[in-house]
C-alpha cells in the first residue's frame, strides 16, 4: 500500500529525513515510532503530499506522492498532529463540511464511523472548540474517515490524551482493519508499538528497524538483567563500578543492565552486597521495545 524508497528531506541544512525506506502492506496497522524531532511528521506530510521530498520516491498504491497528489488527497484520510477542525463549527457541521469537501455526504459511509461518532453524537450541536480532548480526537477521526479512505495517516493521535481515551482510540484503529483500511500511525510512546501489526523505529531522520513488535524484541542481541533496590542512584553507580555491563540505565521501577555474556545473578548479588547494597534482587529480564531502541541508538 505504501512504498517509501530513500526519501530525504532537509530544512535549512538540517536533515529531517535521511534515506528513509520501508513498505506498508495493504490492511496493515503500521506504527511509526520515535521521539519528538525524529522525522515522523515530515514523513507523514510527504506521504500526504503536503511537503515535497528533496530526493527519493514514495508511492501510495500506484500513485506517486509528487505527480499524483490529487488522487492521493482524494483517497487518503489524514489526521494531523494539531487539532485541525473548525473550532467555531459544531460537531455535526464539521462532519458535514468534510463530507462535502470530499464530494460525499454523511450517510454514504456512516456505518464506518458509527461506533466512533455515536459517542459524540449527543454533543452534535456543540462547537468543536468546546469539546474535551478525547471527544475532539473522536470527531477528527470521524472527519478523516467520512470519505472512506483506503489509507488513514494519523500523526500522533494519542499525544496529550489520557490513558482511557488512548485505549479506546487504539480499539477504534483495530476496527479499521475489519473495513480493509490500511492505517499508518505515528507515536512517541514506545509501549504503543505492541498494539501495531508492524512498526518502524525512527530516530534522527533514520529508520532504525522495521519489524513486528515481537520480532523487534527478539532482535535484542544482549543479555538483559533487571534489578530493584532501595537507593537507585547508589545502585546505578555500584553496577557501573563493577565494569561487567555494557549498559546500566533506569527503567521504571527497575534498573536494566546489559551484557554480552550470560552472568550468574548470585555472583552479581554477592558483589553488590559487598559494595553495601541492601535489599537487592538481580534477575534476568525480558527486553521491551525501549531496550531494543536503546540498543539500536548506540
Amino acid at each position, binding site marked *: 500500500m505504501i512504498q517509501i524508497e530513500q526519501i530525504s528531506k532537509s530544512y535549512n541544512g538540517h536533515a529531517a529525513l535521511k534515506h528513509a525506506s520501508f513498505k506498508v502492506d495493504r490492511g496493515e496497522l503500521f506504527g511509526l515510532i520515535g521521539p519528538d524531532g*525524529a522525522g515522523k511528521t515530515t514523513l507523514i506530510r510527504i506521504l500526504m503530499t503536503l511537503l515535497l521530498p528533496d530526493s527519493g520516491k514514495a508511492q501510495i498504491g500506484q500513485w506517486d506522492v509528487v505527480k499524483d497528489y490529487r488522487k492521493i488527497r482524494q483517497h487518503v484520510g489524514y489526521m494531523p498532529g494539531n487539532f485541525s477542525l473548525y473550532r467555531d463549527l459544531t460537531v455535526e457541521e464539521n462532519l458535514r463540511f468534510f463530507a462535502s469537501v470530499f464530494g460525499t455526504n454523511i450517510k454514504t459511509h456512516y456505518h464506518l464511523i458509527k461506533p466512533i461518532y455515536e459517542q459524540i453524537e449527543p454533543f452534535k450541536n456543540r462547537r468543536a472548540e468546546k469539546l474535551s480532548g478525547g471527544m475532539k480526537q473522536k470527531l477528527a477521526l470521524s472527519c478523516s474517515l467520512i470519505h472512506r479512505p483506503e489509507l488513514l495517516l494519523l500523526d500522533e493521535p494519542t499525544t496529550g490524551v489520557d*490513558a482511557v481515551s488512548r485505549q479506546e482510540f487504539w480499539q477504534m484503529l483495530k476496527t479499521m482493519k475489519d473495513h480493509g483500511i490500511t492505517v499508518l500511525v505515528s507515536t*512517541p510512546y514506545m*509501549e504503543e508499538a505492541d498494539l501495531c501489526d508492524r512498526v518502524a523505529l525512527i530516530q534522527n531522520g533514520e529508520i532504525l528497524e522495521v519489524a513486528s513488535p515481537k520480532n523487534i524484541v527478539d532482535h535484542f542481541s544482549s543479555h538483559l538483567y533487571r534489578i530493584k533496590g532501595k537507593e537507585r*542512584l547508589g545502585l546505578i553507580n555500584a553496577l557501573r563500578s563493577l565494569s561487567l555491563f555494557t549498559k546500566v540505565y*533506569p527503567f521504571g521501577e527497575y534498573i536494566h543492565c546489559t551484557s554480552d555474556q550470560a552472568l550468574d545473578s548470585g555472583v552479581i548479588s554477592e558483589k553488590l552486597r559487598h559494595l553495601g547494597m541492601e535489599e537487592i534482587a538481580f534477575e534476568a529480564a525480558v527486553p521491551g521495545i525501549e531496550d531494543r531502541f536503546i540498543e539500536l*541508538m548506540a
Partner: protein
Amino acid sequence: MDSIIIDQLTKKFGSFTAVDKVSLRIQKGEIFGLLGANGAGKTTLIKILTGLSGASSGKATVAGFDIHRQVEKVKMNIGYMSQKFSLYEDLTVRENIQLFGGIYGVSSGFIKTKTTQVLDQLGLQDSAKKLVKSLPLGWRQKLAFSVAIFHEPKIVFLDEPTSGVDPITRRQFWEMIYAAASQGITVLVTTHYMDEASYCDRIAIMNAGKVEALGSPGELKAAYQVDNIEDVFIKIVR
C-alpha cells in the same frame, strides 16, 4: 520529614469542585508522581501548591510555608519545569541560566559559580553562547531541569518532563532527578503518562478531584492485581 503537607484541600469553581478534600504528605527527597486524566484536578492542585491559585478551603504547607499566608515564601522555595515551556529559545544557554537565577534573587556570585558548575555537569561549556533553540531537544530538557533547580529549591515541580524525548535522554533525565532527590530536593511529577509514573517512589492517582489510590508503583500493581500502572489507572477511572 514532610516537605509538602496537604490537609483536606478543596477548590471550587462555582458549583464545580475541581479539588475535593485532598490530603497528602510528601517526604523530603521523595520522587512523587501525581497522575490523573485531563480534568482530574491535578493542574488545579499544582497551581494551589505553587501559589498561582488560592484554595477554597483546607490547609497546606509547602517547604514549611503556609500556602494561604506565605505565598511569596512558597514561591522562593520551589522550582518549576514543564514540557511545553521552560526556557527562552532566543536567549543563549548562559543568558537563560542568568535570567532564571536573577528571577529567584540569588546573588551574582552564586550565579557565576553555579553557572560554571551546571555547564560542566551537562558538558555544555562549548555551547554556553549558543541560542537555546539551536540545541537538540534532549539537551534542552536537561538544561531546563538544571535551570529549575538552579536556585537550590526545596521542591521542584515537573510537568510531563520526559514525554516525547528519546529513550536514552529520558534515562539520563531520570538519573538527574534521582541525583536531585538524593541531595534532598523533593520532586513532584505530574503526568498522564503511566510509563513516566513508574520511575517515581510513590504515586497518587486522582479522579474527579479526589485521590483514589496512593502507594509505590509496586504496591499499586499488587493491590489492583495488574502488570502495569496504566491498567491500575484504567481500573480506577472506569
